[in-house]
């Protein structure tokens, strides 16, 4: 008979919903559960006394061996968490030391990170778990974790909620703990049971809170509010972005080693197809067959398997996969990765309108059909009347945003955009997703102002987010060839860096098929990934093949579907820190866009009302929101509308 899986879990209140089902006999023939402090959970895993443990994120990273994470379940929070606090009699810049216990490595690392971000470097003193509260006197603060935090606000004049501080700093959730274990310890059925345990716990939060409160003499309402509002238990794309940002920052600060989160395969794939009237849905499938190794296939398989689990590829590895990995296996790996990030089977889309406010442009890019040079008789800048009509139509059609992009028009100063944005914001309930880095760079140049100043003034006037256009291929050799007057790789990235620093979220794009080498293509992704490590400001990545028809570039048309799907799947694998990948149906057609949902995509883009730049080079696809939902459903996903920040909207 098989030995039962030995599980170690934290006994804190916030973990009880996760273990609720397990504590009540769910999967008892498979599992053996014990409780311990977070740091002890890590030890049990390290010594082999446990197979799976609820670990602080930092302990996962610091673990000497290879671990896998159970997808979809975590103790996380966005904003105030109430149970990870820095307390003291003085404000934190006056603290010369901080007492902390060894109970949670993540909280300690988070504290040190937040201190460093403020340029503070107090001494850290390890004390016994029980003695922490008493340690906060004078210029010595204390890091409090757990229930003690509920009472801290009344006892100390200065209380800092580290969850709130983290979200303020990064705009992201913080992942406090996750299930992690030996790579082979857990299969799809155990994953399903662990999720079921949480599902049951979430349904019984009030009961858990009551039991906890009674045993400790705390107010049950406080405990219940905590479980309902401060802790979130899903491990989705947002949470994973938060975890990745934490690991990256902590490693840069030398607090933790750098390590990617790798996942168990949960073997799920959303809804079964339901157009027929017979046969019940199938049980959980096994994973796809893998071709026998041979001719170096072995290491391609290993690379793919690691990337599918969440491991990080480098450029050379990605180039190798680009050349050697079979199409379906690339797709399956990207699909597994998508499932880790978006295990709910939701595919999002937005209703917005692409308004090209001017076609006058000084850059003369060879691949562009849209621009007219200054002085050309076909040049235009939209009037307020024309704009107003387009914006009103957008609102009528349920649109939530305007994607506002145009040429680099020397007639339009910064004040034009400020007036325009203020007028748009005053007149229409629409978000402004506007001005690609190229346009922002050009305005800065025209006005002889720093990029940051331009961005600040645009934000003050109403700019909500920045589209990632104009990236093409971020390689200066390629850029010099196709668009010699456009900004350099470094400038494009710098505008995005500045935008992220101001709290703007942006997207990133790639247009491929200019004759660039695979090395150049993946170097582009490397630039994006490195900046995302630094800022976590990108919401999504979108790529499409260059459409040659009618442009001045003498290149073959590079729109074949299989190349797109391969590049798309590799992008999902490479950009491990990007929460969302948008398929490009406007250029590839809705059918290939739909297939790309199975090659790593989780967003169907926009129900588009118009799109000038691409349509002038040949593509004329149009889909309504209803069409998009049909494509999403028939691919086995659940369609949901979103805004630019990928927040789901009630319809």
């Amino acid at each position: 008979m098989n030995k039962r899986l030995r599980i170690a879990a934290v006994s804190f209140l916030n973990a009880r919903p996760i273990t609720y089902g397990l504590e009540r006999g769910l999967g008892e023939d498979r599992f053996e559960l014990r409780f311990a402090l977070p740091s002890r959970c890590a030890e049990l895993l390290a010594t082999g006394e446990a197979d799976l443990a609820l670990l602080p994120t930092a302990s996962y990273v610091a673990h000497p061996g290879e671990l896998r994470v159970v997808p979809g379940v975590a103790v996380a929070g966005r904003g105030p968490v109430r149970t990870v606090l820095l307390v003291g009699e003085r404000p934190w810049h006056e603290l010369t030391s901080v007492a902390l216990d060894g109970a949670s490595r993540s909280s300690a690392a988070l504290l040190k990170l937040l201190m460093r971000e403020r340029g503070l470097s107090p001494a850290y003193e390890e004390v016994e778990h029980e003695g922490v509260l008493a340690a906060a006197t004078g210029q010595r603060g204390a890091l409090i974790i757990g229930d003690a935090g509920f009472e801290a606000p009344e006892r100390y004049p200065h209380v800092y909620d580290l969850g709130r501080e983290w979200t303020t700093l990064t705009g992201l959730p913080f992942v406090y703990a996750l299930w992690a274990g030996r790579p082979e310890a857990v299969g799809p059925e155990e994953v399903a049971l662990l999720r079921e345990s949480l599902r049951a716990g979430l349904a019984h939060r009030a009961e858990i809170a009551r039991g906890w409160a009674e045993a400790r003499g705390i107010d049950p309402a406080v405990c219940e509010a905590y479980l309902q509002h401060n802790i979130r238990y899903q491990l989705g794309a947002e949470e994973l972005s938060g975890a990745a940002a934490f690991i990256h920052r902590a490693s840069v600060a030398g607090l933790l080693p750098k390590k990617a989160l790798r996942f168990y395969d949960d073997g799920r794939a959303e809804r079964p197809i339901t157009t027929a009237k017979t046969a019940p849905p199938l049980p959980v499938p096994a994973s796809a067959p893998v071709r026998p190794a041979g001719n170096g296939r072995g290491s391609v398989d290993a690379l793919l398997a690691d990337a599918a689990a969440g491991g990080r590829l480098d450029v050379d590895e990605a180039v190798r996969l680009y050349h050697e990995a079979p199409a379906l296996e690339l797709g399956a790996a990207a699909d597994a990765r998508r499932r880790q990030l978006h295990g709910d089977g939701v595919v999002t889309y937005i209703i917005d309108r692409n308004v090209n406010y001017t076609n006058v442009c000084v850059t003369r890019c060879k691949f562009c059909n849209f621009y007219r040079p200054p002085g050309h008789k076909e040049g235009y800048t939209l009037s307020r009347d024309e704009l107003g009509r387009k914006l009103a139509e957008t609102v009528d059609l349920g649109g939530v945003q305007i994607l506002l992009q145009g040429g680099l028009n020397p007639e339009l100063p910064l004040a034009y955009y400020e007036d325009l944005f203020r007028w748009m914001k005053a007149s229409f309930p629409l978000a402004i997703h506007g001005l690609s880095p190229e346009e922002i760079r050009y305005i800065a140049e025209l006005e002889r102002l720093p990029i940051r100043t331009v961005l600040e003034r645009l934000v003050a006037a109403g700019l909500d987010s920045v589209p990632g256009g104009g990236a093409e291929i971020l390689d200066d050799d390629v850029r010099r060839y196709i668009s010699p007057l456009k900004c350099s790789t470094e400038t494009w990235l710098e505008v995005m860096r500045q935008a992220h620093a101001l709290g703007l979220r942006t997207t990133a794009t790639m247009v491929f098929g200019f004759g660039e080498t695979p090395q150049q293509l993946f170097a582009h992704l490397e630039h994006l990934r490195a900046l995302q490590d630094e800022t976590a400001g990108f919401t999504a990545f979108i790529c499409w093949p260059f459409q040659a028809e009618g442009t001045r570039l003498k290149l073959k048309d590079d729109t074949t579907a299989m190349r797109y799907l391969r590049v798309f799947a590799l992008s999902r694998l490479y950009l491990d820190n990007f929460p969302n990948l948008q398929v490009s149906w406007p250029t590839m057609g809705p059918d290939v866009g739909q297939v790309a949902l199975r090659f790593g995509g989780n967003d169907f883009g926009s129900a588009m009302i118009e799109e000038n730049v691409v349509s002038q080079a040949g593509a004329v696809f149009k889909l309504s929101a209803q069409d998009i939902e049909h494509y999403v459903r028939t691919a086995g996903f659940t369609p949901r509308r979103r805004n630019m920040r990928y927040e789901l909207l009630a319809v």
Partner: protein
Amino acid sequence: MTALAAIRERVRGGQPLSFEDGVALFRHPNLLEVAALANEVRERLHGDRTYFNRNFHINATNVCVASCMFCSFARLKEGDQGAYTMKLDEAWGKLQARVDAGEPVTEIHIVNGLHDGLPFDYYTDLLAGLKRIKPSIHLKAFTAVEIHYYAQHYGMTIEEVLTRLRAAGLDSLPGGGAEIFAPRVRRKICDDKCNADEWLEVHRTAHRMGLRSNCTMLYGTIETLDERVDHMLRLRALQDETGGFQTFIPLAFHPDNNALMKLPAPTGVEDLRTYAVARLLLHNIPHLKAYWVMLGIKTAQTALWFGADDLDGTVQEEKIYHMAGAETPQAFTPDEIVRTIREAGRSPVERDTLYNVIAEGAALVPDRPFRRPVRRSLEVLS
């Protein structure tokens, strides 16, 4: 063991799949796992080889006594708006023009409406005239529905019709007109057509006479997934009996300009799923064709990883699907086909109708940059 794992074992063991297996494959949530298994079968049969030929279509008349709801091509009688019947000279001229231009076409695909006013000689003369112009041309002509209609209309047996057509130059039968075999569906969408048994009987007879043929399935109208599986299993049963089918061609319904306009066309994922399931169910039919005219070039290319091993041919002058709103180009040049196949990571093979290899590898047209001669594929869902 999960249902898919059991199916995988049967597929690898060479056992035929059951009706339940077929339905399970259609409903299995993970498209790529089904595809991986279909691709395994495809590669076992053909490796990376992907076939195409140089062909063109003649649709000699669109006058048709049948009123199928999915059809945008047919006109009920001569004189109706858009109705046409080619003069024989006109039809022959299409081949003559290609011969004169030095185009190495190897096949003509001929499919027509069920015209009640033409003599049977029209068809035999059509074939004989084409053979006179180019004796080596392969004439793949007349669906089982047409053959069945001729037998009734001209008072002959199926065998007599086929014998006379063969004497005039008929080389093989295309697979059209099968639609969906389920009587429930046929009554609703193509009540005037021959029924499933009659369709199968024509092919049975042809196979017995040594003629090869193809077979099809029109999917995406009102049929259930069960009815698709049932359809394929009936084809498989005849193939067990005769071995005369070369290729199965799933045909996606196109909703423009016909009586079923309210239905959405099948989407890319549904198309690819149907291909993958077909490859797994029809283990005894050697080839699976991604007919680019109706799938669109992009989906057809993708289907090469979902079980398909054939892209049909250069086609030219296709009318039936284009009148139903297909916005694919009218033609696909050999250069483009070769490049499309290579870009998918497959090896192009130019074949004749009977799958004899004409050229492959370096002997095929060079892979040079290409321009589409007609307009780009649009693949719009209206």
